[in-house]
């Protein structure tokens, strides 16, 4: 039932897509999603209640329930109908819900005792609500008719299916014929079988053909592209990649098992919303960790991102074909690798949700002076009035809080974007920037004080220091003495600069044609001030690139229509051949830039076995020294087994410094294959440097070899 309080005078309801009326088929599909939500809720309740020992694996049902069902159910109760935005905001609101709830349980010290009961309660409420919706809409539960599919649509369906299936088969063969470890300094690209590339060509060719036919079936090829591009290491490698993803699973596991934070151990525990939310998923899934999420997290985030970019393009008035093209541009240019299991990847999805809610429910025509000076286009829809608008504001504020308690950088970008949108008058909200600022300061002051007390100067020392910021963000990231590595770094810098330059040209072209989208200008410009604040370990430029990319992708997808006069539509083959040529260059470049670190960011079987040996050997209170952070660290017993960088100097100097730690507990040195490759590729050390280091250390007579796995070794440091 829809509350009359939630309806606008025109009868539309809150948190629905802008379409004035849902078609019969979409109403039916909404009921089918209710059925899915009901099934997911009931399965989870049954597993939690009747299999408390967790014998039945339930990660899939727990994950799908957690990331989708609460948000979907809440929106349906408020009268939402099916639409792409409703589906996307279901993910955004569900994830926000668990992040805020999980953190609230942790900081009030009741996580361990309450989280299971709350999980069951949420699942039961969702089941009851979904059942209620199904009863209300039982007549809509019918299969869509296929009898009226037109011939062009059938042909497009055939092209999409054949290209995706054939491409997937070739990609699968290619992956089985490619090595799964021991990659060179250029990463995955040179080692991939030709079958993989052939599959990629077929899927992307199908995409171009379907785009030329303006078919919605291009979505199928785009989804396949996300899977085969961003999921490549997940399919290829034996273990989840990237040390930080492993660290995050360790943090999540600590919260899931202990119910507490360790703000003194790592700054990230001061923004623990994501970790607390993921810990609730781990508890609902009854698994030992969430490492099972890490392998294909980039695919999950990639699929959500293309939907967000598509919706953004639609909101600023792009055609459907341009919107799908924008999503494809985003996919093939998102090389920054910030989509692993992490707070920032989740915060990016939420940030896009916030932008979409603002632009869909609370848009307005920009101010007169902006329209006159910038030759702006206006947003098509009028948004929502009355209670639906208030609920839109509430959704925005919930997402803002979830972002602020989960990530350090995204609030700054969010504040910048919201302020710009308010200044130009593209949205109806006015107080949101002040709310973001106050909420951020409150969290930093009271929730993250362990982070900044004592080293405030260190955090703020770089503000406005252009030389240091440039050096850390660009200089240190662009230098290597290896030709392969140099090529990878050059491809990244080249792609980033090309995207930013093209986007600026696209915006200027829009201004020239009197079709500037002020929203895109705001979203593109908003992240750049962050570059002046903090180097963030030299990674700030990557984050800025990621957050500018949605707007840049939409701008780039609109360029062909800005270049063409209305009389010269894209009806000839020439522009599509050009698109295919661009893709032919872009896809290999993407693989080089995206997976160029794979030589040291991937973990071999020996790396994983060495980490298992470490955790089997190191008692609580151990300190483990590593030559670089490119290893499996903090994957288990986060509080009990700590890691530090191995002191520099001669073997004797290292021994002297390590001796200082012996009175605090057992001391280990772990040298893994991933560290060996990191030294060779990133630091430019000679091949075999790690063996030399090991021999030097052993020659001091103070080290005992606990075990060796591949080229890696675990040694215990002892008194003479």
């Amino acid at each position, binding site marked *: 039932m829809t509350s009359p309080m939630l309806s606008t005078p025109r009868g539309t309801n809150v948190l629905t897509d802008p379409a004035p009326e849902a078609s019969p088929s979409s109403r039916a599909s909404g009921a089918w999603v209710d059925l899915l939500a009901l099934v997911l809720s009931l399965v989870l309740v049954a597993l939690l209640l009747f299999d408390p020992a967790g014998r039945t694996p339930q990660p899939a049902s727990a994950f799908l329930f957690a990331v989708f069902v609460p948000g979907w159910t809440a929106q349906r109760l408020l009268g939402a109908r099916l639409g792409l935005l409703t589906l996307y905001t279901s993910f955004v609101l569900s994830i926000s819900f668990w992040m805020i709830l999980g953190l609230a349980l942790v900081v009030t010290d009741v996580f361990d005792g309450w989280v299971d009961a709350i999980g069951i309660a949420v699942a039961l409420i969702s089941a009851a609500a979904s059942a209620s919706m199904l009863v209300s809409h039982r007549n809509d539960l019918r299969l869509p008719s296929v009898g009226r599919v037109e011939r062009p649509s059938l042909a497009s369906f055939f092209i999409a299916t054949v290209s995706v299936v054939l491409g997937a088969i070739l990609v699968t063969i290619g992956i089985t014929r490619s090595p799964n470890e021991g990659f060179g300094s250029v990463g995955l690209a040179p080692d991939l079988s030709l079958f993989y590339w052939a599959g990629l060509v077929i899927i992307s060719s199908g995409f171009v053909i379907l785009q030329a036919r303006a078919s919605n079936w291009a979505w199928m090829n785009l989804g396949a592209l996300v899977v085969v591009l961003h999921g490549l290491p997940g399919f290829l490698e034996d273990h989840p990649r990237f040390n930080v993803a492993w660290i995050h699973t360790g943090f999540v596991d600590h919260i899931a098992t202990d119910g507490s934070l360790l703000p003194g151990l790592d700054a990230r525990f001061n923004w623990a919303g994501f970790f607390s939310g993921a810990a609730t998923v781990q508890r609902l899934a009854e698994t030992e960790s969430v490492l099972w999420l890490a392998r294909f997290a980039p695919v999950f985030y990639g699929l959500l991102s293309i939907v967000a970019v598509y919706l953004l393009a639609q909101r600023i008035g792009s055609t459907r074909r341009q919107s799908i093209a924008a999503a494809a541009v985003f996919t093939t240019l998102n090389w920054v690798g910030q989509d692993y299991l992490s707070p920032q990847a989740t915060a990016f999805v939420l940030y896009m949700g916030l932008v979409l809610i603002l632009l869909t429910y609370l848009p307005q025509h920009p101010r007169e002076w902006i329209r006159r000076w910038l030759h702006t286009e206006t947003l098509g829809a009028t948004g929502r009035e009355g*209670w639906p608008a208030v609920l839109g504001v509430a959704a925005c504020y919930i997402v803002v809080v979830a972002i602020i308690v989960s990530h350090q950088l995204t609030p700054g970008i969010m504040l910048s974007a919201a302020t710009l949108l308010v200044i130009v008058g593209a949205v109806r909200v006015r*107080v949101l920037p002040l709310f973001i600022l106050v909420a951020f300061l409150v969290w930093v002051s*009271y929730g993250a004080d362990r982070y900044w007390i004592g080293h405030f100067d260190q955090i703020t020392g770089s503000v406005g220091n252009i030389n240091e910021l440039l050096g850390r963000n660009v200089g240190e990231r662009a230098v290597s003495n290896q030709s392969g590595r140099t090529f990878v770094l050059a491809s990244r810098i080249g792609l980033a600069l090309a995207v930013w330059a093209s986007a600026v040209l696209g915006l200027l072209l829009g201004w020239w044609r009197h079709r500037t989208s002020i929203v895109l200008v705001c979203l593109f410009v908003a992240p750049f001030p962050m570059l002046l604040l903090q180097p963030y370990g030299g990674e700030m430029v990557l984050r800025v690139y990621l957050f500018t990319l949605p707007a840049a992708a939409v701008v780039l997808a609109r360029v062909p229509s800005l270049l063409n006069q209305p009389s010269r539509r894209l009806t000839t083959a020439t522009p599509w051949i050009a698109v295919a040529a661009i893709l032919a260059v872009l896809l290999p470049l993407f693989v080089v830039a995206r997976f160029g670190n794979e030589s040291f960011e991937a973990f071999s079987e020996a790396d994983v076995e060495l980490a298992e040996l470490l955790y089997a050997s190191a008692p609580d209170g151990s300190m483990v020294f590593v030559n670089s952070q490119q290893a499996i660290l903090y994957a288990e017993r986060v509080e009990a087994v700590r890691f530090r960088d191995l002191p520099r100097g001669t073997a004797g100097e290292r021994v002297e410094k390590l001796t200082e730690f012996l009175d605090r507990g057992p001391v280990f040195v772990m040298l893994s294959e991933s560290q060996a490759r990191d030294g060779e590729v990133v630091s430019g050390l000679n091949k075999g440097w790690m063996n030399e280091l090991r021999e030097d250390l052993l020659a001091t007579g103070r080290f005992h070899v606990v075990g060796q796995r591949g080229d890696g070794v675990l040694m215990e440091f002892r008194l003479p």
Partner: protein
Amino acid sequence: MSVDWLMSAWLGVPLAVAAFVLLFIWEAQIVTVRRSPMTLKVGAILTSLTLIGLIVNRFVALT
């Protein structure tokens, strides 16, 4: 007189909740095109500024 309580979360958090509620109500009034009472605007701004002042004081005192 000790001013430790000025820096404690016992003062800051309730003030933050009050500020968030007032800001939300103000925003709700704006998006529904209703005339916001002056007391609401002044209350929201004063609460927010007081909170920001407390936070800045805390930053200065603890760093």
